[in-house]
């Protein structure tokens, strides 16, 4: 089930809230678990058992890793088994067909792919969560969870189940057993959820329609400007879609008394790619940092080793986003840029004026999305050629490109403003200057506005894609 659907808003959410706040404390996690399973099973019931299997493996591993009771050897074996299980599932469901297809075409083999193998939704997110749990328990970072129900609630927690953020066990370990829902937290959750829904439904879907229209346009109607317009549209779409989902997740979490960590921090204001990756999908990059980069030795084993480690991490980051060449290229692309920045570019950039650094970063980010957005390699290459004037296109054709730009000009302005922390700062100022009016009137009115307009867009059955089915 998707957050941006009327079924979620008016059936699922109202039911889960009503049940959650009706039951006594000791049943609250059970309510969350049951609803989360229904949420997950919606439309694709069988894969629930796969997820329950992963939870069981994580649970048992947690018990075996308890070093006071078991020898280090048992713990090691069980944690290895858990890692193999999780990565095995991920590899099997997500990458098998990719490997088969490439083996067939590269080595002229003739293995038939698994036609009915559908990717279980959210598997990349919950696999990483259970992995972080077992590794942390093994390392002694967190205590194992004795209560299966609590662990299952953690993994399945519907707000973050299908599109992140990757909530680590240590973040909500305490909250799983000891949380207090409050009016304040619920109201913050409402605000956050409305903002996220608005970002997804009003902004991302709207500009996403432009991207899909431009990318479907015949070459004859394209121009250099149109191809940039398309990829800039995608740049906004992916940010508002993804961060909107994270906002909705964080907001829903708050309604139930959970505090997740932030996942996005205005990434498009970055001055370098290094900064961009500290602001974009924070839960993923910190996961790779803590569970891949640092265990590989990080920067502690010399410059060469560090460079290799960075490339490994970014190759994997790219590949995590989907079983396709373009995602790998996208990861490697950022790996190379980050490496350059680390080795010499950042020092050089520091001498330049801020605006130049900003343009530098944005340009590389947008080009990056140009790689990310196209799974079909020939479409990807065509688009890159078009962007850089190698596609034999006019710079501007004054027809379709003018139409696309003019029809979306106001939307682009709104998207730019919404990418900056302006509203946040305005809110902070108003909270101080007009505490009552802002809190009791302006904020609720804006929230109501966002909710109603989002519902209007959902009612109109407008363009509403789910971008993470490949993750």
């Amino acid at each position, binding site marked *: 089930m998707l957050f941006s659907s009327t*079924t979620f808003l008016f059936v699922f959410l109202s039911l889960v809230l009503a049940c959650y706040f009706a039951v006594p404390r000791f049943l609250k996690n059970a309510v969350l678990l049951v609803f989360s399973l229904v949420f997950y099973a919606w439309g694709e019931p069988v894969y629930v058992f796969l997820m329950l299997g992963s939870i069981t493996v994580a649970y048992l591993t947690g018990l075996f890793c308890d070093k006071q009771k078991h020898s280090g050897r048992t713990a090691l074996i069980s944690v290895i088994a858990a890692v193999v299980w999780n990565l095995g599932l991920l590899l099997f469901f997500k990458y098998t067909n990719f490997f088969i297809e490439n083996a067939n075409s590269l080595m002229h083999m003739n293995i038939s792919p698994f036609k009915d193998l559908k990717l279980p939704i959210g598997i990349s997110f919950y696999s990483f969560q259970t992995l972080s749990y077992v590794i942390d328990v093994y390392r002694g970072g967190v205590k194992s969870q004795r209560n299966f129900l609590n662990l299952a609630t953690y993994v399945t927690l519907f707000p973050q189940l299908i599109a992140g953020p990757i909530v680590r066990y240590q973040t909500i370990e305490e909250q799983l057993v000891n949380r207090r829902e409050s009016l304040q937290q619920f109201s913050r959750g409402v605000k956050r959820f409305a903002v996220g829904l608005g970002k997804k439904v009003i902004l991302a879907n709207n500009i996403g329609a432009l991207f899909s229209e431009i990318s479907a346009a015949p070459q004859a109607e394209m121009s250099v400007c149109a191809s940039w317009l398309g990829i800039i549209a995608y740049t906004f779409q992916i940010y508002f879609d993804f961060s909107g989902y994270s906002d909705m997740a964080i907001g829903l979490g708050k309604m139930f008394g959970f505090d997740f960590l932030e996942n996005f921090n205005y990434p498009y204001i970055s001055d370098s790619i290094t900064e961009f990756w500290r602001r974009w999908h924070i839960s993923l990059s910190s996961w790779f940092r803590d569970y891949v980069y640092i265990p590989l030795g990080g920067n502690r084993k010399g410059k060469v080793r560090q460079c290799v480690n960075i490339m490994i991490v970014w190759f994997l980051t790219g590949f995590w986003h989907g079983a396709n060449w373009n995602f790998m290229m996208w990861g490697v692309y950022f790996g190379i840029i980050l490496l350059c920045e680390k080795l010499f570019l950042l020092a050089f950039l520091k001498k330049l004026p801020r605006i130049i650094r900003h343009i530098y970063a944005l340009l590389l980010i947008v080009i990056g999305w140009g790689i990310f957005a196209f799974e079909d390699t020939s479409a990807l290459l065509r688009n890159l050629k078009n962007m850089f004037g190698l596609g034999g296109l006019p710079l501007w054709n004054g027809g379709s490109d003018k139409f696309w730009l003019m029809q979306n000009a106001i939307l682009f302005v709104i998207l730019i403003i919404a990418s900056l922390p302006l509203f946040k700062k305005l809110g902070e100022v108003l909270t101080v200057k007009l505490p009552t009016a802002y809190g009791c009137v302006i904020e609720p009115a804006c929230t109501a506005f966002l909710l109603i*307009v989002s519902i209007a867009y959902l009612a109109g059955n407008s363009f509403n894609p789910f971008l993470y089915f490949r993750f």
Partner: protein
Amino acid sequence: MENKHRRAADIVMIAVFVIIIFGFALALIIKSDRDFSEMENRNLAQKPELSWSSIKSGDFSDGLESYISDQLFAKDALVTLKTDFDRLLGKSYQNGVYLIKDSDGRLRYVQKYTEDREQIRENAECLNDLADKLSIPVDMILVPNVSAYTLDKLPAGADCNDQKKSVEYVGSILSDKIGFYPMTETLAASYEQNYYLTDHHWTSWGAALAAEDYLRRSGQLAADGAVNKEPSETVKDFYGTLYSKAPSAFADPDVLEIGSSCGVAEIEWVAEGKSGDNLIERSFLEKKDKYAAFLGGNFAQVRIRTGREGEKVLILKDSYANAAVQYLTEQYSEITMIDLRYYRMQERSVSELCEDYGVDRVIMLYNMDFINEDRNFVWLS
């Protein structure tokens, strides 16, 4: 004091959320389900059946989703809000329709037109073939759609082709046996009166002008002869099919006019086995799609005996002709209307019909968009 304010603000915020989310949820339960949406012109999804097999197959989840989406409280109002919010964002092209302003500031819906020369040629050739087989006069009345006159008013860069050129193209490939009567010039002056604001059809006024012009130019009416264009009745609050594609709260409804010569000796819907004595099917005047009041919509074969003197004609038609026929009843004694979308030639071909009915003249009455898109002309050959 601070804390008290904070608390009040939290309560207001939560109230907003609860009212909206639970309000819609409750409305779904309380409100009785609609069977049909006039706005969307389709049947709406009903409650899905809850059973183990429907859950397992995914029918239940799909069914529930369509049910909730279709039966959503205040759905039409919400879709209107969406249209106007999109307009606020500067989107004057939505769902295949341009939303422009008339000279008097009223909102006008204009359908996008993309010329398909291949299809036009094919269709024209079918009509040529028919004309070749007939030994009676054959005329073609070709009506441009409103976009022919609004190209300069469309949003910047709009990719809408020029219908005037398409009309000229049809004229250039039509056989000499067909008298060609393009209505481009006739409807150009004060075109805003000749087409509905919210519907893709022409108004009765536009149809009357065209009928008169055709009869004069073809010599069936004296050069100073006139058809009676005065309406006998006007029907308000007509929101047409284009409005339904992008319903705006700022759209003005159209007024539908009924001509004074709609009463006839007999009108017969042949395949339906139904007959009457008036061109107007009054029940539609109460419904949303009021244009369907003309002849009750489109049918394979409608025969009209006007009870007046004159030629017997056969009209090959689309829905534009439905509004025009009320201005032809004074001129002809018998009018047979054939809609090729529904009429199949198994029984009798058009030339056989002409012979059997003793038809004196064949009139092809089509709008440009129809010739550009329709794929049923092949039934003629």
